[in-house]
């Protein structure tokens, strides 16, 4: 697999765009647990209940543990959520994540502060052993066909494929980070006004076990992954599309 990063990153990056396309940002740590799953939610809840008083069990929790553990598609899914006004925390036997509330991205500074707080609480809870993977994932939604606004597309016989539903996934490398980029122009997002068709840009950037240590370099790694996703996002947009998003620079 090529290590080349094929997108040119603009020299100046905006600090804000309007309208903000971010539906959700997820900061996830996969880990080896030091405690049985049955005790983990309680250990975490005891640390976070003042800020995250509500909890919700997710449907996959109904799947028997043996099946969840043996299915690679299920093993890293969260089983329970803890909710606050601005964020939610998701927990599974091998995963914990901090997730922004849909369509209310609070900005990196606020996220960084919450991540720092959460890492301290997780350390105190004491059920996380070795780190397997640290990632930042941003899911953006755009009205219409986003491929018209990107420097990325699909070609047939050297001609751009236009007007058809297209899903595109590619894996990029940047240093020790692996980035999975998924773009689709056939998405439906649930909004307050009902379902809305459009496009999704889904960027997931992660460090593997050798580069990640949640309680060592975790916060810095999340920051680096966030920065690479930001670089990629603005590297993907055409200048015309960026201008239409009313960028604000420092």
């Amino acid at each position, binding site marked *: 697999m090529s290590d080349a990063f094929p997108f040119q990153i603009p020299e100046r990056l905006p600090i804000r765009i309007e309208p903000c396309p971010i539906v959700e940002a997820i900061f996830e740590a996969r880990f080896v647990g030091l405690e049985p799953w049955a005790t983990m939610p309680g250990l975490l809840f005891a640390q976070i209940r003042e800020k995250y008083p509500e909890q919700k069990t997710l449907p996959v929790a109904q799947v028997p543990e043996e099946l969840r553990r*043996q299915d690679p598609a299920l093993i890293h*899914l969260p089983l329970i959520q803890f909710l606050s006004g601005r964020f939610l925390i998701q927990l599974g036997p091998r995963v914990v994540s901090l997730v922004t509330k849909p369509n209310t991205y609070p900005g990196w500074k606020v996220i960084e502060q919450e991540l720092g707080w959460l890492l301290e609480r997780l350390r105190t809870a004491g059920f996380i052993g070795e780190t397997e993977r640290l990632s930042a994932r941003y899911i953006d939604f755009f009205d219409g066909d986003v491929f018209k606004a990107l420097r990325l597309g699909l070609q047939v016989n050297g001609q751009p494929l236009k007007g058809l539903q297209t899903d595109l996934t590619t894996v990029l490398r940047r240093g020790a980070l692996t980035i999975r980029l998924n773009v689709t122009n056939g998405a439906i997002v649930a909004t307050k006004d009902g379902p809305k068709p459009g496009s999704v840009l889904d960027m997931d950037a992660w460090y593997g076990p050798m580069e990640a240590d949640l309680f060592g370099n975790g916060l810095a790694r999340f920051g680096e992954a966030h920065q690479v996703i930001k670089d990629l996002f603005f590297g993907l947009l055409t200048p015309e599309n960026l201008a239409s998003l009313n960028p604000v620079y420092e």
Partner: protein
Amino acid sequence: MTALFYQSLPASFSLVEALREPAAVAAVRRTAPDELAREELLLRKLGPRGWGRVHHFRNYYASDWGENGRVLSPKALDAFFRFVEEAQFPAGGPSVFLTDRGGIELCWEDREGRPVQIEFTGTGAEFYQAATEEEGVVAFDSLAQLARRLSA
């Protein structure tokens, strides 16, 4: 694929669920980058049995297997793959074991039939080579060098 976001669930959750169409659940899944290359590497160097054992260690061992056994360490597994990529094993390939502390161990005999052992752990690798009566511990960044030495 059509991605659906449900108001009650975060996209990170529902997107994954949306990918799980019936056919995908049964037979097809999206692999992690490098996963296919690593599977191929295991088959080539450890053979079908070795591949099967590693698959078993990764997917079927929960915490407290045996007597207080630990699950396979992700760092140990990554180190194991890096080593196997560089190492040359005799015909028949090495045997592979999961250790109590969540490490993964390779054992084989050199050309003179003397044992070689190496255990990958969450912090490095411990090895023993009977031919030279040598044993030691190496860090992750010395694995390629060790693989070449033990392969000789």
